[in-house]
Each structure stands twice: as C-alpha cells, then as structure tokens.
C-alpha cells in the first residue's frame, strides 16, 4: 500500500533559524496536504498542493510539490516560538483503483524552537 515517509523526525532550532521538513511518497499522488499539530492538539490543515512542481507561500512558510508528484517539502523562514509543533504531510492517491482517496500521513517532524 501507499507509504509516506517524512524526515527528519525531530528538529531543534534557535529562534530565527530556518527549518525544512521533507516528505516522500512510495506512489504518485493526486495531491499532498500539510497539517500542523500543536502539543496536545489536533491536526490543523495548512495547505494543499495539487499541481506538479507547485510552490505556495503562506507568510514565512513555503510549500513545494515535486515534479513527479511524489515528494514535497515545507520550509519555514526565521522560525518563531509560535512555530513549535509537529508538521505532518499527508498524501492522497490518484483517483481510481482500490482507494477512494484516503489521506495517508507521514510520521511528522517535531519542531522545537529555542528562544
């Protein structure tokens, strides 16, 4: 079945440093989504990428979807303490086949930011 791998598992940064997490799917995706989970919280939708090579920005966050639609990255510029949490990518398979479109999550990257 579809697997989504995410690295690194942990990232500790000083406030103001940049942060990047990488996501790789074993199969070509219909789209990839990114979620943030604060400690003790629930996943909160950040963004969806659909097109091959797509790049989207949300303030200090930059999301990329690979040309082959199998990998993705999230880059945060100049981290702040409010960025603390676990960042998950989640891939959705191409329509058809046996999958109706379930979202498969990566293992997540736990980001800690030291002030």
């Amino acid at each position, binding site marked *: 079945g579809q697997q989504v791998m995410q690295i690194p598992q942990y990232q500790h940064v000083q406030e103001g440093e940049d942060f990047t997490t990488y996501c790789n799917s074993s199969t070509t995706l219909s789209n990839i989504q990114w979620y943030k989970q604060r400690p003790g919280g629930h996943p909160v*939708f950040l963004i969806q990428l659909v097109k091959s090579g797509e790049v989207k920005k949300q303030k200090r966050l930059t999301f990329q979807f690979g040309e082959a639609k199998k990998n993705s990255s999230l880059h945060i510029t100049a981290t702040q303490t409010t960025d603390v949490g676990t960042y998950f990518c989640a891939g959705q398979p191409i329509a058809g086949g046996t999958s109706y479109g*379930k*979202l498969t999550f990566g293992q997540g990257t736990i980001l800690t930011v030291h002030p």
Partner: protein
Amino acid sequence: EPEVTQTPSHQVTQMGQEVILRCVPISNHLYFYWYRQILGQKVEFLVSFYNNEISEKSEIFDDQFSVERPDGSNFTLKIRSTKLEDSAMYFCASSEWVRRGGYTFGSGTRLTVV
C-alpha cells in the same frame, strides 16, 4: 470558524467493554473520517464514510469497529470489545469534497483501555 465537535474528550474503559465515540461534523460537509494517533506516533487512517456508507477502511478497522450516522448530525465510532492496544487519541474529521481542500479535525477523544 466551523468546528468538528467530539465527545467525550477522555474515556477510560475496562478491557473488553464497548465504547462509543461521538462526533458532530461540520454541517455542510459530506465526507467523514475517523483517524487515530497512538501517543507520539503518526496519524493513522481508520475509515471514511460518505452517503451513509463506508467508502474505505484500513486493516486496523476490523470487525470490532463500526461507524454509524444515526441522525443528520452525529457520526459515531463504536469499538465492540476494547483491547489494551486500542488506547489512543481518536480524531474525527470531515471535509466538503474528497480531493479538494483539507480535512477539518476535531479535538479528539483520548481513549484509555485498562
């Protein structure tokens, strides 16, 4: 901002007992999901539900699990005979479309089986 509401927030149950976890999805959403997250691990898909029937389920979702939409607003997950390994945070989610936009997750029910 519309929310997905889950109750209870925490449930402690004895092994072998039945539990029902409840969810109220966002009212104009058509697709409903249950996910679970064992402490410190990734979010795992359990089941998706559309048009009053299961559209997809994972290997975890065996005969001990069932879902229901008993009325126009609630969406429930039942575990018939709980095991210790069922201890996890259970998240309900809903979405307006299956492939456009993201899921809105509820704040979860922490299930502890003792």
